[in-house]
């Protein structure tokens, strides 16, 4: 990559089917812009996301991973996102503990009505990852392009 070329981070966004994915949809249909570098993976519930999904995404070249779910209390399955909250807190804390740049992972609660929040969240996250630069520490040496 030449120095002048702008760094375009690869972002993986896990979105819950019931709120955040619909929020992304709304953002799209309302023509709210968010970077095309965000690749959305739809999951039935934010608590479906196994920590390994997140680490694998990083290993295979993601520069940032964001997880979006229903607001606490609004989970389609009533309590799924409460478990997510504890699990992700633990996982992010561990990533911080082993010295992997803090801030490459994030959890945001986005409802189906929050198209604007979805778009600003993604813009903000992409900007953050851009400032952090390429993910080196979490990547697999074999996956260089």
């Amino acid at each position: 990559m030449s120095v002048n070329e702008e760094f375009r981070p690869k972002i993986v966004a896990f979105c819950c089917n019931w709120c955040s994915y619909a929020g992304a949809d709304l953002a799209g249909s309302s023509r709210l812009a968010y970077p095309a570098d965000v690749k959305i993976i739809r999951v039935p519930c934010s608590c479906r996301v196994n920590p390994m999904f997140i680490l694998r995404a990083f290993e295979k070249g993601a520069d940032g991973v964001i997880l979006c779910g229903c607001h606490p209390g609004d989970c389609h399955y009533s309590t799924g996102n409460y478990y997510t909250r504890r699990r992700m807190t633990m996982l992010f804390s561990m990533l911080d503990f082993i010295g992997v740049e803090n801030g490459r992972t994030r959890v945001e609660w986005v409802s189906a009505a929050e198209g604007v929040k979805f778009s600003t969240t993604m813009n903000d996250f992409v900007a953050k990852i851009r400032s952090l630069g390429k993910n080196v520490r979490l990547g697999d040496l074999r996956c260089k392009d």
Partner: protein
Amino acid sequence: MKKIAITKLNDLYAAIAQNQSLLLPIKRAGQTNFGIWTEDAEVDLQTLKTVKSAKDAFFPQSENLYTCYKDGKKISIAPEKLQEESFVVFGMKGCDVRGAMVLDKVFLANPVDNYYAARREHGIIVSLACSQPEESCFCKAFGIDCAEPEGDVVTWLTADYLYWKPVTEKGEALTAQVADLLEDADDKAVSEQKAAIAATVEKLPYANISLEGWNGDALKEKFDSPLWEQLYKPCLACGTCTFVCPTCQCYDIKDYDTGNGIQRYRCWDSCMYSDFTMMAHGNNRNSQMQRFRQRFMHKLVYFPANNDGMYSCVGCGRCVDKCPSHLNILKVIKAFGKEGK
């Protein structure tokens, strides 16, 4: 016989490393393993046994065989480059050198494994005598002389000097590269050390363990022995013994999709793992007893049966030191010895 003052060893390493990569025991995060020498590496010749043997130098824990590229339906294959530059493995002990010879029987047998063969061809072994053998050593039982190991160059470490004796053509060539640093020496200090080592070896508790009855002949008898049922019980089915062993050669072949080509790699595998022999229609070694038995039968019976009596154990004692449950090949040999069969 040549020698070099131990204060100048760093110069020696640097001189060797100038012409080829140099692997030697390096202490990192409290443990000593073979690694590539760099100026800031902490070389550790005092630790008798590296945690992993020097096996990695010739048969790395993980190596690529080829990369497979897909373009639509079209597949193309790019084999991995074979080793074509020489490299030096410094500080291999007698058991590790013999371990490489055991691996030769497997990988250099027809059809030759070219990846391994290329490394063997380009690898120069500088062995080091064991000035202080330890209690778990029993290399003598396999006819290994740890006071004068095999190798391209043999060295001895005393309080002040490293004594250096080239043995093979490869060893002579390496010696020529570093001739400026070496001075001539007589055999006296080395002879003394050899005598001291020999005396220590006699005091080792397992140096003279009897391997009587362990040969290819009694294969089925050993296989069907009820002793295995008693011996395997505490086994955790981990791979520690196999991964620290200088002679274990079982490997797995797998694919890794990098997103830009599928890498075909092979990596060490362990016969102790439950999925080792698993296939679509079942598993022929589905109990840990069978897997435990396989490991020791392979080392002590099957391998000698196929290789003119050469055992696939060199008595390095790493498994004795490292088994989490304190199981090991010595306990197996002794248990069978006690039964007299």
